[in-house]
């Protein structure tokens, strides 16, 4: 057998464009495997020279899936440029931003579970490619598909009510928000007349967690071991209690066994993190300076958040978290596929939080914007659906941006995804005489668990086939499959 190279391009059912290269040696074993991020965005550069107040509007154009997360992270940073720290924002502004954020996490997690991940779970890893999609899910389980659509819709309607539109809307302004919530808007989400209400969202979230737990019981060996590897975990936690925190908190990292590696104020992140680069990817590799490139990388996102928080401050999600944690005897969970389970617990948490806020009269207040003494540096960190999202801006005395640094969630997970690709490739491809399409799908599943957002913004009809190329070591094409 000669050396050969397998290329999966683009990786499917993820947000954006990436490709995987797997190098096989003469003995049919995986030599190495890489996830390449082939998009380049350049936002950090071209935002320079723009006035600071444009940042929350401009940077959300990074993405059509998680613009709200970028909007909020940038807004938190810009607040500091006008001298307003998170604790000094008005209660109404904080609550409205949080409601927007929870709507975003809820709709994003719904999208990932129902549209992207559920085909693998419902039909199994060996199902034919033509069956592994939302259409087949809909045909198989009409009610599940309907619920998936309506849950995502609920989150998007929250976003639309607050930001004006579902994608690339605006709520936050420097030091606050530009609009309040009306009684009529609130009633839309509570009365259930036009869309299923927030109580229904809570019920359905519980149902889908039960579905996942049953699936886990029936498929524990596979779910527990697929793409499993030890790692550090990073997430925001509540400043006082250590609870799961999505909007504003301390950055905490633990290792694979639960030892605390980091517990810092979010604005200190620059002293504790560095970013490495590799020539084969546009995505950087962040790591904790103290522990170095090899040992200092973290996983972020739902699984990491379950591992870094002490508890969840909503009752139903906390009950589910305790069940989740009991499975690993309260130690950190390093089972990659359990990320799906953790993601659903967060959906329930967000549904509960949205209900709390919708019932809070303060969201209809009129104290919207606060002012302070301007500064030249602002850092905004939130937990986006896919993990820790960091925005940092520096300005000159005219308020023009001179420097910008963005570390997006998927960047934190870069090392983790590459390790996952390598582990699964070795597990499923080594010594196999024929490389089948379901085998390659398993490689993609290791990436898909992280719900990476590789983001793109322009679309046209009839584009983007999946092409799998198998080349020999000299780059000669041996086989090619398209789907």
């Amino acid at each position, binding site marked *: 057998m000669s050396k050969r190279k397998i290329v999966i391009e683009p990786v499917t059912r993820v947000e954006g464009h990436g490709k995987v290269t797997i190098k096989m040696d003469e003995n049919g074993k995986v030599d190495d495997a890489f996830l390449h991020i082939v998009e380049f965005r350049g936002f950090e550069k071209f935002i320079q020279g723009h006035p600071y107040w444009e940042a929350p509007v401009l940077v959300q154009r990074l993405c059509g899936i998680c613009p709200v997360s970028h909007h909020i992270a940038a807004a938190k940073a810009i607040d500091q440029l006008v001298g307003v720290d998170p604790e000094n924002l008005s209660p109404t502004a904080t609550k409205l931003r949080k409601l927007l954020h929870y709507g975003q996490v809820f709709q994003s997690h719904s999208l990932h579970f129902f549209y992207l991940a559920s085909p693998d779970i419902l039909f199994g890893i060996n199902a034919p490619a033509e069956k592994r999609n939302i259409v087949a899910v809909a045909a198989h389980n009409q009610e599940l598909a309907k619920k*998936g659509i309506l849950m995502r819709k609920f989150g998007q309607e929250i976003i639309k009510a607050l930001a004006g539109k579902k994608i690339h809307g605006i709520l936050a302004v420097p030091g606050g928000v530009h609009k309040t919530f009306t009684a009529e808007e609130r009633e839309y989400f509570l009365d259930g007349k036009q869309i299923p209400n927030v109580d229904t969202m809570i019920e359905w979230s519980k149902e889908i967690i039960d579905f996942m737990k049953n699936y886990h019981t029936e498929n524990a060996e596979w779910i527990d071991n697929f793409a499993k590897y030890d790692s550090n975990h990073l997430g925001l936690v509540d400043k006082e209690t250590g609870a799961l925190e999505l909007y504003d908190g301390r950055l905490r990292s633990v290792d694979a066994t639960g030892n605390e590696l980091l517990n810092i104020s979010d604005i200190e992140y620059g002293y504790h993190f560095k970013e490495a680069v590799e020539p084969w990817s546009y995505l950087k590799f962040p790591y904790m300076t103290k522990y170095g490139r090899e040992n200092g990388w973290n996983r972020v996102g739902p699984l990491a958040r379950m591992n870094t928080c002490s508890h969840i401050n909503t009752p139903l999600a906390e009950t589910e978290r305790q069940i989740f944690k009991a499975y690993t005897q309260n130690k950190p969970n390093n089972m990659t596929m359990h990320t799906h389970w953790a993601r659903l617990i967060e959906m329930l948490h967000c549904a509960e939080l949205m209900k709390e806020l919708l019932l809070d009269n303060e969201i209809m207040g009129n104290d919207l914007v606060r002012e302070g003494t301007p500064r030249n540096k602002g850092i905004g960190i939130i937990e986006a659906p896919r993990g820790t999202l960091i925005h940092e801006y520096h300005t000159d005395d005219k308020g023009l941006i001179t420097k910008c640094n963005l570390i997006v969630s998927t960047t934190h997970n870069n090392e983790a995804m590459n390790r996952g690709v390598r582990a699964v490739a070795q597990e499923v491809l080594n010594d196999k005489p024929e490389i089948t399409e379901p085998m390659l799908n398993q490689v993609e599943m290791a990436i898909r668990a992280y719900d990476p957002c590789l983001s793109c913004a322009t679309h046209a009809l009839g584009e983007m086939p999946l092409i799998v190329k198998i080349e020999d070591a000299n780059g000669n094409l041996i086989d090619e499959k398209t789907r």
Partner: protein
Amino acid sequence: MKKLDNILIIGIGNNTRQDDGLGWAFLDNLVEQGYNEDNLLYKYQLMVEDAELIAEYNTVIFVDAYKKELENGFIFEEIEPAKQVSFSTHAVPPNQILNLCETIYNKTPKAYVLKIEGITWEIEIKLSEQASNNLEKSLNYFNQIIIPQTCNN
């Protein structure tokens, strides 16, 4: 106001990428002509949940930029629910949205795609001259042919 009874027109695109904004520019023009905005929808991309939305209409028209050359600068085609599948939330084609609508909601609105040829796709909010001409031709066709036809169906 010009009414679009039970017709939904979805403009797909991104107006910050030059001719990728053709779908939105088409809708902008309909707004200027006085069509009721409730039936005009601006989208960056189609998503699965659009299946729920189109289930409420008798007719849906998808308007999007097209990268390949078209004889008249645009083409208007009726489409059927597709059995083919898409693998990315970034590229769900209209005929698959129809498929989902049929599969989940047991409804099949009459559906068309209006493809308008675009030329340039850089980061700028401005249509190319040729794309603007193609847009104008497609709008004339819409007003003279499509609206009388679809409203009579």
